[in-house]
């Protein structure tokens, strides 16, 4: 019987004008979002790969220089586009795309897309994820809101129940039928996504990427299932089709528009983050007075001098066989990097606390769960951006360290003119950032995973527990 209902629901839905119009609309939006997203992904990827290559080439070919001059000249780190980011832009538009790597200074990533855009960007971006997360549930609601309430209003429900079919069987049949019809929209879009991933990676699909894609599929499948079953259950329990529609629309507005914004705003007001100015000032103070406040920079300098002199068993800096300026610079770099990292981690911690409010709301709101998972899988989430920033800082430090060490060994104190051979630049490896592995993404998103699991169980129970009583 369940099968018959499913088939009936499936065929009538395919003939339904509502389904044809709205389904067609969403399918075309998906197509536009996919192709548009992919085109912009390709051009950004090309732009950045080229820029990274250019930065590398100018670095290698900067000619003979004093090593410290080269450290000031520095290089650039570009955030590579993640392969699946055309599917979900995530926070990519709001994080800086490149970092200037130079001696003495940890720069913030600059040139985010949001900075170059008008306020329109704040309305949200047209991506596949956006259509699937926001508009698809709306389509589901419009298709399913009267699935059972209409049968009630037409008195056909009584007929079915009197033939011995249970309410939950009817509901399961409907859910099956709807899912099958919706698959006509979703499956082609996801197939095209897969084809585009293949084109994007030129066929060299890694297991990591495949797994990311599979998990994305799964997350969305659960998300849609939740909305379909919720719509059917509410349709069964509501007094009228109209009430069912209104409650479902209310839920949609709350879950997809209001709660995400509200939880994020709440998070930001509970956990106060320092401004750029306070952040830089605190770093400056720590560098000057020492991280414990009792070790000012001039004292640190004197101590270092003493230590180096004893180490080389000489009485003055001039007698040193090595360049003391380079040693002092390296110590300074080490110290300032330590201070910077301390403050950076502290601030990141605050941001993560802020975001955790929204992340935990996934338990109540499946939209948040799927949103965070989707971003994480696409490599366009905040953690990936953060990993890039940390990697760039580490790279910067090692670059400066290599140059300082070279300067220490090849010249004497006070010699800022001696030029190093251009071959030292090649000693610094290519900037080659890789996204964190899928395991770490999953570990960060355990709340979302748990939430989806809870929601499946909840929905299955809700449907199975539908009682025949709502008949009267």
């Amino acid at each position, binding site marked *: 019987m369940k099968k018959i209902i499913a088939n009936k629901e499936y065929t009538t839905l395919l003939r339904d004008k509502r389904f044809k119009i709205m389904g067609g609309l969403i399918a075309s*939006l998906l197509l536009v979002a996919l192709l548009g997203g992919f085109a912009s992904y390709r051009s950004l990827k090309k732009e950045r790969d080229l820029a990274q290559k250019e930065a590398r080439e100018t670095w290698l070919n900067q000619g003979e220089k004093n090593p410290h*001059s080269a450290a000031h000249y520095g290089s650039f780190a570009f955030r590579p586009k993640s392969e699946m980011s055309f599917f979900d832009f995530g926070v990519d538009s709001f994080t800086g795309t490149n970092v200037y790597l130079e001696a003495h200074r940890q720069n913030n990533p600059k040139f985010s897309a*949001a*900075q170059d855009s*008008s306020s*329109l960007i704040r309305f949200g971006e047209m991506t596949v994820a956006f259509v699937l997360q926001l508009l698809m549930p709306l389509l589901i609601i419009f298709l399913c809101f009267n699935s059972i309430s209409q049968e009630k209003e037409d008195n056909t429900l009584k007929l079915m129940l009197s033939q011995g079919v249970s309410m939950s069987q009817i509901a399961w049949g409907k859910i099956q039928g709807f899912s099958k019809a919706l698959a006509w929209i979703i499956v082609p879009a996801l197939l095209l996504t897969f084809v585009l991933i293949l084109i994007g990676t030129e066929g060299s699909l890694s297991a990591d990427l495949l797994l990311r894609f599979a998990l994305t599929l799964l997350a969305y499948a659960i998300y849609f299932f939740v909305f379909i079953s919720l719509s059917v259950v509410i349709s069964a329990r509501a007094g009228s089709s109209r009430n069912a529609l209104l409650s479902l629309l209310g839920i949609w507005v709350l879950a997809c528009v209001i709660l*995400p914004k509200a939880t*994020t*705003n709440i998070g930001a007001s509970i956990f106060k983050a320092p401004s750029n100015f306070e952040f830089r000032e605190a770093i400056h103070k720590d560098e000057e007075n020492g991280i414990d406040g009792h070790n000012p920079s001039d004292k640190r300098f004197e101590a270092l001098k003493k230590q180096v002199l004893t180490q080389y068993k000489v009485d003055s800096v001039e007698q040193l066989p090595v360049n003391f300026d380079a040693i002092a610079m390296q110590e300074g770099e080490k110290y300032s990097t330590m201070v910077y990292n301390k403050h950076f981690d502290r601030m990141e911690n605050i941001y993560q606390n802020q975001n955790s409010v929204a992340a935990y709301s996934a338990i109540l709101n499946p939209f948040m769960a799927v949103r965070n998972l989707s971003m994480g899988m696409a490599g366009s989430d905040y953690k990936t951006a953060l990993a890039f920033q940390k990697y760039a800082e580490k790279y910067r430090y090692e670059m400066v360290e290599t140059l300082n060490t070279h300067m220490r060994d090849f010249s004497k104190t006070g010699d800022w003119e001696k*030029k190093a051979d251009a071959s030292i630049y090649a000693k610094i490896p290519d900037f080659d950032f890789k996204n964190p592995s899928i395991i770490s993404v999953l570990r960060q998103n355990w709340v979302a995973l748990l939430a989806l699991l809870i929601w499946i169980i909840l929905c299955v129970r809700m449907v199975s527990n539908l009682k025949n009583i709502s008949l009267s």
Partner: protein
Amino acid sequence: MEALLLKNFLRSKGLMTGLLILFVAGLISLNIGKHFLDKNKEIIEKTAHYQQESIAKNVEFHPKEIGLLLYYVRFGLVNDIPNLAGLAIGQRDINPSLQSVTIRNLEEQKYATDLMNPMYQMLGNMDFSFVLIYFFPLIIIAFCFNLISEEKEEGTWSLVLSQSGNPLKMLRIKILIRFVSVLLVLVLLLIIAKFYLAISFGAAFWAFILTAILYVVFWFALAWLVASFHKNSSQNALILLLSWVTLTIVVPAGINAITVNLYPVPEAFSTLLESRDGYHNKWDVPKEPTVAKFHQHYPQFSQFKHPEGKDYSWLWYYAMQQMGDDEAAKEALAFKEKLKKRNAFSSTAGMFFPSIHAQLSLNALSLSDMDNYLNFIEKLENFHEQKRLYFYPKIFTEAAVSEENWKKFGLEFYQEKPSLNWLKMLLPLLIISTLCVFWAKLKFRKNGI
């Protein structure tokens, strides 16, 4: 009849709850705006204090060479925030409202960003403009989607037709009551905002209020139009909500995508690269050409020469820094032009869509849009240039640090006046609303009421 309709409305729990939700959401948004303004004020006050302190400290550390001192000293320019921006924060949370620059190469400093949580930026502030653009229409839809259909579905429509001489008048009063109630909440919120955020009654605030009211009018006009189709409640709700989704979600995202693809900005990076190479590459090349180029840019400083045979002079150092800007100037200009084009395109396209038009107008009035940011950047360029022109001769003549009154270098403020183009701002909303009402009139006439 009017009294009865009003009583009916006041007794309806659903409608009253709707108004209450709207009011509370509005209050929350005002609080967020207040918080934003306070935080910015605090940053500005602290920076003002810190700038004085840090200049004094630097003067103490580097009392001998003014050239060295000015390597360190930062001068701050504030993009003044009107209190109205508490209602429409716009891009102000992405683009910093305060820039502190040294007289060195500007390009490297110009696009400095604030530290921000990108997740927060992605979802945006729940400011008043958000409540107005997204929330008000939803409540209006909930109020009006069953204007006629509820009477039909409850079987009272035939009663209305038979008993009332003019059913259209009854409908008009019904929607008018709803309109007035929503308007009251809106005006009440704006009055509270005026005092809570200390917004001054100026042309900008009036324009803000008018835009907000017209936006609400548009949604009522649309609901009126949909009512004239005589469809059932579910269909009405569907049509109205689809319009909402299209206007507030799909179209803005679409226009943004088109803008970004029409005007890509590869210049963002090339500017950076040119500027770095322009400056840093000069360290290891002969000094004369650099200084010659500097003289070409500033003929008034030709009398200052780099001392021959010396490996260092401040003239040469600042000439190198200047080259960082000069060699990137072409790219930087192209970049700015592209951003202007992006902005112009989206605001023109947005005129046809009340949601976009209202949002962009509110941001423009609150000086939190891209135009304001671009103007600020231009002002920053001027500010930076003035500081250079003031200090260059002092550096080249090696003026004594102590001769300068360093206390006078406090924060400077850029105060923009919002450009008020009343017609361009209000007409699009007015025209679209009028069209809706006119079309509804035709429909009602055709349908016999």
